[in-house]
């Protein structure tokens, strides 16, 4: 991780693959305080027409944030995460996140982040951040 990234439009982020095993799906749902049964009970998820339990939206937002700060480092300050949701992410499928710098404007970096799994595009998102919060007012 570094805070002195050479960031220009078109810069790509290192890919991140996350295995959506049941432990991941369930622990992330509970850590985000999302107790909907479709995220932890396969029988009920299937009764409701899903193939299996699936990852909840709050986890997607968290993963996108992790993906971006893994690259940008601890001084980065995330300003926004806009998610468009696509195909579901069922247990046992792997999500691969990839990202590209879309613009750099007055210290604000905009990234296009896509999360693909076996079914297609699960996450299509736009993230804005400043790379060094120490010079851009990270705190209160």
């Amino acid at each position: 991780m570094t805070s002195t990234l050479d960031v220009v439009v078109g810069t790509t982020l290192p890919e991140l693959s996350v295995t959506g095993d049941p432990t991941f799906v369930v622990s992330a749902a509970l850590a985000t305080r999302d107790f909907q049964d479709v995220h932890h009970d396969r029988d009920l998820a299937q009764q409701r027409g899903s193939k299996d339990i699936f990852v909840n939206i709050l986890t997607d937002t968290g993963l996108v944030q992790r993906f971006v700060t893994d690259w940008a480092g601890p001084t980065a300050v995330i300003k926004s995460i806009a998610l468009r949701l696509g195909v579901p992410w069922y247990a046992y499928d792997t999500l691969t996140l990839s990202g590209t710098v879309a613009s750099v404007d007055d210290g604000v970096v905009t990234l296009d982040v896509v999360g693909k799994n076996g079914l297609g595009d699960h996450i299509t998102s736009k993230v804005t951040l400043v790379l060094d919060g120490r010079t851009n007012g990270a705190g209160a």
Partner: protein
Amino acid sequence: MSSEQILAAAEEVRSAGPSAPRPGRDPINLPMIRNWVEAIGDKNPIYVDEAAARAAGHDGIVAPPAMAQVWTMQGLNAVRQTDDPLGRMTTILDEAGFTSVVATNCDQVYHRYLKVGEEVTITTTLEDVVGPKKTGLGEGWFFNTRSVWRDAAGEPVAEMLFRILKFMPKTDRPGPSGNGQGASYDDLDPSRMMRPSASQDTQFFWDGVAAHELRIQQREDGTLQHPPVPALWKDKAETTDYVVASGRGTVFSYVVHHAPKVPGRSLPFVVALVELEEGVRMLGELRGVAPADVTIGMPVEAIYLDFPGDDETGGAPWTLYAWQRGAKERS
């Protein structure tokens, strides 16, 4: 409910403005942060390490901004507040028949990072309601809610735009029988019912039910077989042979189910073993006949229950067959 009535009801919710501020259950705290970073696999040290947070320009440990919503999530047995616009709008569209839901967008803006010990409240407002629109899932309405999280001083720390599509699942699947209109099912809760589970050997049967026909497997020698068996006399790649039953038959035997409870069904209900005109016997629920009125030999006919996709998962619509009193006896 007409489109005008939906828009009028939506306007009432929108003009009511934001819901009352609802506090998170606990202040921003390290145990919840730890659970979250461990589950997400986030190694950013500013969420757990005081020195690292200070080195990065914060006053101390901060919460991951993507946890904004987590702080105001309710507990395991949560009940939505009566002034919550998302709940109110959901009810309006459910009652208008747009019973399925799928979230399409979740956009969050973070004004600043929260520190351990701070407390937040959430308020939610209904924004645009657009519809009816034809979508791939069916006709539906899009609506946006905007939530704002505020700190103890009332200053916004994060905002979220949440966009939902509430839709009427497509159930118009007329089969060769021409019986395109599904039967009513007010006594059932399809979101809780067990769905049929099709195997390679029974897929043709359930495809038939979806098309509103009863398909009976035909063996190599031309005789009929139900329930279907593996068609070992055919190549695996081929579909089994079947005939389409008339759907008419008589009650060969039956039971009345009083207990235990069955998810999504009202008790008691009748399960009839029906001898079809084609000679095979098939189990199914006999509907619309009081248990005391069922008799052996009663004429019955097949009906089809078209269920919507599920509200929470956006799962595909599905169909179940059942029996009702036969036309012969009714006329």
